[in-house]
C-alpha cells in the first residue's frame, strides 16, 4: 500500500477539510504534511508582527482544528507530519517575542500535534551562527529550545524533527543549521539518550539540500534510522522554488540538476519507512486552478515511482 503524502497548504482548506482530504485520497495520497506554520508566517515574525492565533486557549485551538481531526479520521488520510511555525527565534526582536515563541507558540504547537494524532513535528534550528560566531554556539541555543519541548515530546510520543535549512549571505545561499549529517546524528543520539525516548529525529529536505550542494546519498546514509520524515521538492540549484521533482536541468543532455538517483539509493539502503512527503504547495500556485488536480496527480505518480525504487 502506498504511503505518499503532500503538504496541506493550499491543498486542504480550513473550511472544507473533509472534502479536500477525500479529494486527495481519490488522487491516491494517504497522508498529509500539515502546514501549521501558515498560521504564523516567517514574514510576520521577521516583521515582528505576531498574530493572535496562538493566543487562543488550548480548548479554542482544539475546537478550531476539530474538523480537520475528524476529517482525517473519517477519510483515513493520516496527518503524518506537521511543521511548527518558523523562525523560532528572531535575534533582532525584543526578548518578549522570543519568549512568546518558546513558551506559548511552540508549546501549543506540540499540543496541537498531539491533538491531531500526529507523531512528527518539524522544527527549524535557530539561524544564529553568524551572530554568535560558530555553528556549535548556534546549536547550543537550538538545543535549549528543543530540550524545553522534549518533555512534551516524550509525554505525547512525538518525535521532533530538525531539518537541514539554509541561510542567505546577500542573495547567495549557503548551508545553515543542521546541514552536517554526522553532527546531526550525534546530537540526535545524545538528546534521545538524555530523555530516554525518541524525542528527536531528522527531516531531510531535498530542495534545501540541493541549494547547498549536499550529497544526498551520503547525507541520508549517514542519518540512517534517525531520518523520520521528508520534505521532497525540487529547484534549479539557485532559488528555493519547491517545485515538482525532475523539473530542472541545465544541460542539453537534460539530466536533472538534482541527484534523485542518489537520494533513492540511500532511502533504500536505510530502509526508510516513513511517508514520501512532497512539500510542494507552491506548485499549486504555479499551475492554474484548472490544472491543480493534474499537478497533484503528477506529484502522486512521482511518489509512486519513488516508492517503487525504495520499498
Amino acid at each position, binding site marked *: 500500500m502506498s504511503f505518499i503524502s503532500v503538504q496541506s497548504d493550499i491543498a486542504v482548506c480550513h473550511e472544507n477539510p473533509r472534502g479536500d482530504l477525500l479529494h486527495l485520497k481519490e488522487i491516491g495520497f494517504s497522508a498529509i504534511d500539515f502546514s501549521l506554520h501558515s498560521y504564523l508566517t516567517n514574514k510576520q515574525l521577521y516583521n515582528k508582527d505576531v498574530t493572535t492565533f496562538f493566543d487562543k486557549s488550548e480548548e479554542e485551538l482544539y475546537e478550531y482544528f476539530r474538523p480537520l481531526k475528524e476529517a482525517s479520521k473519517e477519510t483515513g488520510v493520516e496527518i503524518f507530519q506537521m511543521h511548527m511555525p518558523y523562525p523560532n527565534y528572531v*535575534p*533582532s526582536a525584543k526578548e518578549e517575542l522570543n519568549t512568546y515563541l518558546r513558551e506559548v507558540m511552540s508549546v501549543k504547537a506540540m499540543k496541537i500535534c498531539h491533538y491531531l494524532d500526529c507523531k512528527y513535528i518539524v522544527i527549524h534550528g535557530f539561524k544564529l*551562527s*553568524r*551572530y*554568535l*560566531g*560558530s*555553528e556549535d554556539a548556534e546549536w547550543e541555543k537550538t538545543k535549549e529550545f528543543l530540550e524545553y519541548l522534549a518533555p512534551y515530546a516524550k509525554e505525547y510520543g512525538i518525535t521532533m524533527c530538525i531539518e537541514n535549512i*539554509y541561510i542567505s*549571505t*546577500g*542573495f*547567495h*545561499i*549557503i*548551508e545553515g543549521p543542521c*546541514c*552536517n549529517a*554526522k553532527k546531526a546524528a550525534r546530537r540526535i543520539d545524545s538528546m534521545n539518550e538524555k530523555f530516554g525516548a525518541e524525542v528527536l529525529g531528522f527531516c531531510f529536505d531535498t530542495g534545501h539540500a*540541493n*541549494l*547547498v*550542494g*549536499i*550529497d544526498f*546519498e551520503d547525507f541520508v546514509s549517514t542519518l540512517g534510522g534517525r531520518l523520520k520524515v521528508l520534505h521532497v521538492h525540487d529547484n534549479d*540549484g*539557485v532559488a528555493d522554488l519547491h517545485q515538482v521533482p525532475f523539473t*530542472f*536541468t*541545465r*544541460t542539453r*543532455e*537534460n*539530466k*536533472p*540538476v*538534482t*541527484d534523485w538517483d*542518489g537520494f533513492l539509493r540511500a532511502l533504500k539502503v536505510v530502509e526508510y519507512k516513513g511517508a514520501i512527503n512532497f512539500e510542494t504547495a507552491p506548485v499549486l500556485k504555479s499551475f492554474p486552478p484548472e490544472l491543480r488536480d493534474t499537478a497533484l496527480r503528477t506529484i502522486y505518480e512521482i511518489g509512486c515511482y519513488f516508492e517503487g525504487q525504495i520499498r
Partner: protein
Amino acid sequence: MNILTTTATVTRPERPSQGINDIKAAGFDDFIIDASMYLEPRVLMRWNKLLTPEKEQWIADDIAAMKTALSERGIVPRAVLLPYASTEMMRSDYVEVLTKYCKMILREFEDAGIRNFIARPLTVNIETNELDEVNKAYYMDLLGECKCEDTKILLVNACRCVGGHLIRGMFTEPEQVISWLDMLNEKAGKKRFGFCCDIGAYTLAAVNMQDTLKAMGECVDMVWLRDNDGKSDKSIMMFFGQQGGEYTTDLLGLIRGLRECEFDGDLIMDASTSIHLCPAMLWPQYMKFEREMAGYIQWQIELETSLYKYDHIVLFGAGNMCRAFMKAYGDRVQPLFTCDNNQASWGTVFEGLEVMNPEVLRDLPENTGVYICNMYYTQIEAQLKEMGVANIEFFNDEYLPTYHEQRIDRNKKAITE
C-alpha cells in the same frame, strides 16, 4: 603568510617571460604554475582528436620555455597546479591520459626545483563506489613519480556535477580530508601529502566556510582564493563575484575561518577569468590591483593576531567601531583608553574606556599599538604621524567574530536596539 598568484592570470604558455615579469612587478611574493594551460580541460575532453603529435610537441616546448624563463630569472615557483578534467567531461577514458601528463609535468617541474604539486581528485564520470580506489592509486602514482623526499602532493577540494549543477564533491568534508591525509601519509611513511583549499569550489558547494576551515586547522597548506557567480567554475577577482548586487563568496565565513585556524601558509590569488576579459594591455594594472586586494585580505586574516603583538593597546575613536572592538575583543585585550577628536567626549566613559584628548598619545608606554577605530583612516593616520605616534594600526569591524545589535544611529544620536 605568502601572497601568490597563478600563471593562469597573465602568462601565455608559449612565451611565459612577460607574464612572469608582470607578476613580479605587481609585487607578488611568488606564484604557482597553472599547468592546465599545457593540457587544457577542453583538449582532454576530446583527447583522442586533439592530442595530436603536433600538440604533444607544443606541450613539451611550452614546458621547456617556462623552465628556461624560470632558470634565467633564478625563480623557483611555489607550486604547480596539475591538469584536471572539467566537470563537463562526458567520457571516462581520460584517466590514463591525464595521469600520464600529470606525471610528466610533475617530473619536469620537480626537476626545476618546485616542491609542491596541487592535484585535483579524479571524480568526473567515475562511479561513486570506485572513487576511493581510483584516487588512492592516482595519488600514490603521482608520489611515486617524485624524485625528491621533500616534494609534496596537495589534495584539493572538488565539485561534482549533477546535470550541470555543481555540488559538493571529494574532499569537501573536513573529516574526509583529514582521514585521507592520514592514510596517504602513512602509506608514504612521511608527511608527503597536504591540502589546498579551493575557496571557489567551497563557494559553489555552499559550505559553511568558517566551520570547514576551522575543522581542517593545520591541514591547510595553501588557500586558493577565487570568486565566482555561485553557479560556474570560474576564477573571478575577489569581491567581484556577485548575485543580486551582493557578494557570492561567504567572506565573513572565510575570514573568520582563516583567523580561527590561524592560517599562515600560502594565499594564492586567482582572478584569471576576470583578467582575461580585459584588454591584455591592462593586465599588469589588474595584477597590481589584485596584489592590493591580497594585502587587504591578509590584513583582515591577521587582524586578531596583530592585537597580541603589543604589550598595550589604545584605541582612537569613540563610536560604533570602538563599540565593535570592545564587544568583540574587549574581554581578551583590554585597551588602556580611547581618544577622539570630539572635545565634548573627553573625560567621558565609552564602552568601559575613558575617552581622552589625542594629545596623550604623544606619551605612550613602549610597545603600545594605536588602533584607529574610525573609517577615516587616512586622515587620522596623517594626524597621528604628525604627532610622532608610532605603531599605528587600522581596526576594522566588517568581519567580527560575533555580532551585536547595539549601534549608534547618528540621526537619533542614541543607541538603537
